[in-house]
């Protein structure tokens, strides 16, 4: 009796270990994404999102988008649906942050310093941020269902770790691309690298505001 139950317990433990190993194997995939322009140069700040078949449940996440020298910092953000974003204002001047994008409409009336309560982005899509006082201030938030994302570095590369080892869709997005590259698929059980080849060079970002200048 005792031996039988002990054997069963061992079997269960083994199953659990195998399961855990399988899960950890499933999570251990890594993907290196590269975004190259037609000249083969890396493209910076491209949002990369890896979407598996089944998405893990949402968890509470938070992010911050600051306002420094009349610019949103970072200018391009990527967050998961449900993320609460705080918009502090580190400038000595007041700002009025707004969005009329369908994915999230909001206004943060005139403020300096201490931010308002965070805004929760509850729908996927691209949210374009503006300041009603400084028209040249523009920011972008890419809101995605997937928790696996990042932005390419100055060399146009991004390494994403702890991905599920399964078939995934990979998308790339940047507001300065005249054509967004088509979505790709990858099997992370075998593929560890993926590259997006842009057919046209990205536009240069808009010129940064010189805070000493005004619109006349």
């Amino acid at each position, binding site marked *: 009796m005792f031996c039988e139950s002990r054997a069963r317990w061992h079997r269960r433990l083994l199953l659990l270990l195998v399961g855990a190993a399988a899960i950890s194997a499933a999570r251990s995939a890594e993907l290196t994404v590269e975004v190259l322009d037609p000249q083969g140069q890396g493209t910076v700040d491209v949002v990369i999102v890896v979407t598996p078949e089944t998405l893990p449940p949402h968890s509470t996440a938070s992010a911050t988008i600051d306002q420094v020298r009349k610019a949103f910092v970072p200018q391009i953000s990527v967050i998961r649906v449900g993320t609460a974003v705080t918009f502090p204002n580190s400038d000595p001047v007041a700002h009025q942050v707004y969005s009329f994008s369908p994915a999230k409409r909001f206004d943060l009336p005139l403020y300096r310093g201490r931010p308002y309560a965070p805004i929760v982005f509850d729908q996927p899509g691209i949210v374009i941020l*503006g300041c009603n006082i400084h028209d040249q201030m523009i920011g972008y938030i890419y809101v995605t269902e997937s928790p696996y994302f990042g932005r390419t570095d100055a060399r146009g590369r991004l390494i994403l770790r702890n991905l599920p080892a399964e078939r995934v869709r990979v998308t790339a997005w940047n507001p300065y691309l005249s054509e967004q590259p088509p979505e790709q698929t990858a099997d992370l059980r075998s593929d560890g690298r993926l590259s997006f080849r842009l057919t046209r060079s990205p536009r*240069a970002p808009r010129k940064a505001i010189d805070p000493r200048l005004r619109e006349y």
Partner: protein
Amino acid sequence: MSYARPCAVLFAAMTLQTGHTAEFGAYELNTQIDLRAVVVDTPYESFTEGGLGLLRFDESHDGLRLGRAMLNARGPLTETLWADLTLSATGDHAAHAVDLTEASVEWRPYPRNSLRFKTQLGAFYPPISLENRAIGWQSAYSLSPSAINTWIGEEIRTIGLQQSVTLRGAAIQQPFDVTLTAGVFGYNDPMGVLIFQRGWALHDRQTTLFDGLPRPFTSPSGDTHIEFFREIDHRPGYYVGAEYRYQDRHAVRALHYDNRGDPAKNDGKDSAWRSRFDSIGWRSEFADTTLIAQAMLGDTAVGASTDGRGRFILEYWSYFILASQRLGAHRFTARYDRMYTDTERGATFFDSDQTATAWTAAYLWDIDPHWQFAVEAIEIDGSLRQRAALGQPTDADERLLQLAIRLSL
């Protein structure tokens, strides 16, 4: 010193306002004191003294002068209604030691789609200049703006209403913005008298709202002072303009302007002048290099005539090209101006005729966020035929070298 009083008043106002800054955190306050050392080489008396010299200073001004004392206050009256006010002092023969150059309120409703609407009411500059983009409508590239924008600062202010709508490319992920603007204004009927009597000039003195300039030629009614911002014929003027911007680096601006003055009207002090012009400008900003070009063509008319067009008609045009290079905190600018006026009708009574070119070289050094040092050299070469009426040589070179030290707070 002639500028001690305006300086004291502005600094007092500034100190007073600084106290308010903490209370109303959204207010922006900018003050600037600009002191000059000037050396001038010209046979003419400056227009600021009632002469026909095209520079702000003449040989009698050699030495230390006040460039400008300026205070700009900007802040919200409500969430979307903004007030903007600029006080200036020039320290010369102005009737008021400190006076307004601009005062307006602007309604900026939150955009609800890719269109951005703005409504401005008050006294302000119409969207013409691509140089005058520093606070207080100062040139960002030199001390003195081009002949075209010098004239705007002298004779033109929108005292009225302006409505603009901008298609914001950022909202539709496009690299451009397109703006259409229309304005309706009054109180600018004497506009044209100075360009008729004196021609184009080059300087940074902006006429204040409640002041004017000496009249180079006394009016038939014996008036010796021009007040630019007056309503004489009770007919509003208008302008329509368009601007295209690409990536906030390249901008093209066009404006059609007509004050719809009735040249037959006179209120005893001055006549209404019918002034209209078209202006087109382009600016490109590369990494540290800026190129600007602008051209203006227009006419002005005054006096009763059987065809209603005016007894005197002056045609005028000007263009300039500017190149500016920034090297860290240092900026180097070169500009070439071409100026032309011609009396189309009435030349037998008064022949206003100018053909001139000018070169401007400027160096600006931002020593720190508060202090700026600047050097500017201007040479104007050309003729102004109406000088003969005062027994002066029509042709002469006018040269100015000015050093400025500017403290901004």
